[in-house]
C-alpha cells in the first residue's frame, strides 16, 4: 500500500510538473498547450544523445537539454503561436495539437521507435519501514514540490506579476509599459524547462521512447483541471492526487482501470462543477 502510494506520488509528480507547464502558458498567453509533453520529450532525447554519442555527464547534458528545450519553445511560440494569439481556443487548441504531431513525428524520424535508457546519476533505493523508495522517486516528488514552490515565488516577482497581468488583460499592462512579447517568451521558455525536467525524470525512471509523451498530455490537463486552471498549487496537488488514485485503482481494481480512473475523474469534475473549479471562467458577455 505505502509502496503504491509512493509510486503514485512519483507518477503524480510528473503529471503535476506537466500541469504546471500547462498552467504557466495558459495563465500568461491563454493558450491550452497540447504539445506540452512532447516539448519536453524532444530535449530529453537530446539529453540522451549528448550522453550517448558525446559521453557527456548527466549534469552537463541536463542543463544543455533544458536550454535546448527553451530555445525550441521560443521558436515555436514565435512562429506558430504568436500569429494566432488573437484567435480563440479553437485555433490554439488545433495549433498545439498540430505541433504535438509534428514534434512526435520528428522524434520518430530522428530517433526511431526503439526504447532507450537514460543512465540516472544516482540510482538505487533505500528502505523506510520495510518499504523501498528509489532515489528516482524521491527526486521526482521533491523536484515537483520545489518547482511548485519556485513558481509560486515567481508569480510574486515583477515578471510574474506582469505575466498574470497580461493573462488577465492584454491592453492595460502594455499601457504601463509591460513588454508583452517578452512576457510570452518567458512563459513559454519556463514552461519548456519544466516540461524537460518532467520528461527527463519520467523517462529515466521508466524508459525513453518516442511515444512517451502522448499518454501524459491528457493527464496533465486532468491534473490542471482538478486544481482549477488558474492555480499553481492546485495543479500540483491535482497531479499528486491523480497519480495516487490512479495507481491505487490499478493495484486494487486492475491495471486496465488506471487510465479510466483519470478520465472518470475529469468527467465527473467537469460535470459536477464545470465552472466552479475554473478560476479563469469568464463572465458572460452581454
Amino acid at each position, binding site marked *: 500500500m505505502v509502496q503504491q502510494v509512493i509510486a503514485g506520488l512519483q507518477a503524480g509528480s510528473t503529471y503535476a510538473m506537466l500541469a504546471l507547464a500547462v498552467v504557466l502558458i495558459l495563465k500568461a498567453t491563454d493558450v491550452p498547450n497540447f504539445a506540452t509533453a512532447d516539448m519536453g520529450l524532444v530535449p530529453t532525447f537530446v539529453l540522451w544523445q549528448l550522453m550517448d554519442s558525446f559521453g557527456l555527464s548527466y549534469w552537463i547534458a541536463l542543463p544543455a537539454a533544458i536550454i535546448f528545450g527553451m530555445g525550441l519553445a521560443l521558436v515555436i511560440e514565435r512562429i506558430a503561436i504568436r500569429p494566432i494569439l488573437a*484567435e480563440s481556443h479553437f485555433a490554439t487548441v488545433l495549433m498545439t495539437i498540430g505541433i504535438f504531431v509534428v514534434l512526435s513525428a520528428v522524434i520518430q524520424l530522428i530517433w526511431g521507435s526503439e526504447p532507450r535508457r537514460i543512465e540516472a546519476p544516482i540510482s538505487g533505493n533505500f528502505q523506510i519501514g520495510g518499504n523501498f523508495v528509489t532515489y528516482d522517486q524521491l527526486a521526482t516528488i521533491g523536484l515537483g514540490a520545489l518547482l511548485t514552490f519556485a513558481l509560486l515565488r515567481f508569480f510574486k516577482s515583477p515578471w510574474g506579476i506582469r505575466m498574470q497581468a497580461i493573462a488577465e488583460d492584454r491592453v492595460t499592462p502594455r499601457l504601463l509599459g509591460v513588454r508583452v512579447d517578452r512576457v510570452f517568451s518567458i512563459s513559454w521558455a519556463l514552461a519548456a524547462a519544466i516540461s524537460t525536467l518532467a520528461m527527463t525524470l519520467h523517462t529515466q525512471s521508466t524508459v525513453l521512447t518516442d511515444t512517451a509523451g502522448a499518454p501524459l498530455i491528457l493527464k496533465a490537463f486532468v491534473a490542471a483541471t482538478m486544481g482549477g486552471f488558474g492555480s499553481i498549487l492546485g495543479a500540483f496537488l491535482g497531479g499528486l492526487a491523480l497519480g495516487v488514485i490512479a495507481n491505487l485503482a490499478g493495484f486494487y481494481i486492475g491495471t486496465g482501470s488506471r487510465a479510466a480512473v483519470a478520465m472518470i475523474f475529469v468527467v465527473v469534475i467537469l460535470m459536477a462543477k464545470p465552472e466552479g473549479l475554473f478560476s479563469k471562467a469568464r463572465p458572460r458577455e452581454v
Partner: protein
Amino acid sequence: MAVDIDASTASKETGSGKKAGGLSRGSAGGPITAVRAAQLAGGLALLALAIVLPNLINPYRMFLATLIVVFATAGVGLVVIMGWTGQIALAHVAFMGIGAYGTNWLFSDLGIPWLVSLILSAFAAAVVGVLIGFPAARLRGFYLAIATLAFAELIVRFFVEVDTITGGIAGKPIEIIQLFGLAPDRSHWYIALMMAAVVFIATDRLGRTAFGRCLRMVRDAEIATGSLGISATQYKLLAFALSAFIAALAGGLFGQLLTYVSPDTFHTALLIQFLVVVFVGGITRLSGAIIGAIFVVVSRELFQDVGDWQRLVYGISLVLAVRFLPGGLTSLWSTLRSARSLRGVTQEAGA
C-alpha cells in the same frame, strides 16, 4: 395577447416578384435553370462513373476510393459539430469505434441484418453523443476539448474491457459482408456511395435550412440565441447526436474496410487524421470533408513506405492550415466566402 405571424400581409407587401429568390445563393431567375441543368448532367455523369468505377481500376485502388468516401462521410460529422456549431469536440473517432464494433457485434454475433445493425449502432452512438453533450453544452473552448478527449478515452477503455464483444486489446476480425452476392470490394464501394449520398444530401439540406441556421447562431452569437427563442443547449445536443450518428455510420463501414479492428484503431492517430480531413479541407463546408478526405488518403498512400513521414505531413499540414488557411483548401476557390469561416468559429468558441 398572442403573437400573430401575419404571413399573408407580408407576402402581399413583397408582391413576390423578382425578389422571390429562395435561399440557395443566386438561384433567382432564368439563367439559373441552365446552370441547374448543367449541374444535373454533371451529377449524372459522376454517378455513371461511380457505378462503373470498379471495372476500371484495380481492387486496391478501389479500396482507396472507398476509404476516401468513408473518410469524407465521417468528416461530415465533424463539420456539423465543429464547423457549424463551433464546438471543439474531439470524441469523433470513438463514435466511429462504436459504429465499427457495434455493427459487427449485432451482425456477426446476434445475426441481425447488416444494414439494420449499422443503423442501430448509429443510434446507440447518437445516444452516447447526447450523454457527452450534456456536460459539454456547459463547457466552452478548450474545456470542452479536454472533456471530449476524456470521454473518447473512456469509450476506448470500454472497448478494451468488453472483450467478449470487441476481442479486447487484441482486437477482432470483422465479418465481411457481400451485397447482392457482389465481391466485397464492390459491395463496400456501393454501400459507401449510398451512405455518403444519404449523409451528404440530408446534412446539406439540414445545413441550408432552419436547423443549420440555428446551429450557426450557436456558433457565432450564442449570446443572442435566447432572445430569438433558440435554445442553445438543445441545438448543441442535437449537433452532438447528429455528429455521432454520422461518425458511427462511417465507422461501421470503416471496420469492413479494415477487416480487423482493435481499440487502438480508434485512438489519437485516427483522430489526428480526421482533424486534418476537416481543417485542411475546410471546416465549415461539406465539400471540405471531401477535399480533406482525398488529401489524407492520398498522402497516406504516398508516404505508405516511409511511415514516419506520414505523421509529419499530417502535423505540418494541420499547423499550416490553422496558421495560413483558416477556411481550408475549399476556401481557395471560393475566396469570396473565405477568411471568415474559421474566424467565425473561433470567435464564439473563445468568447
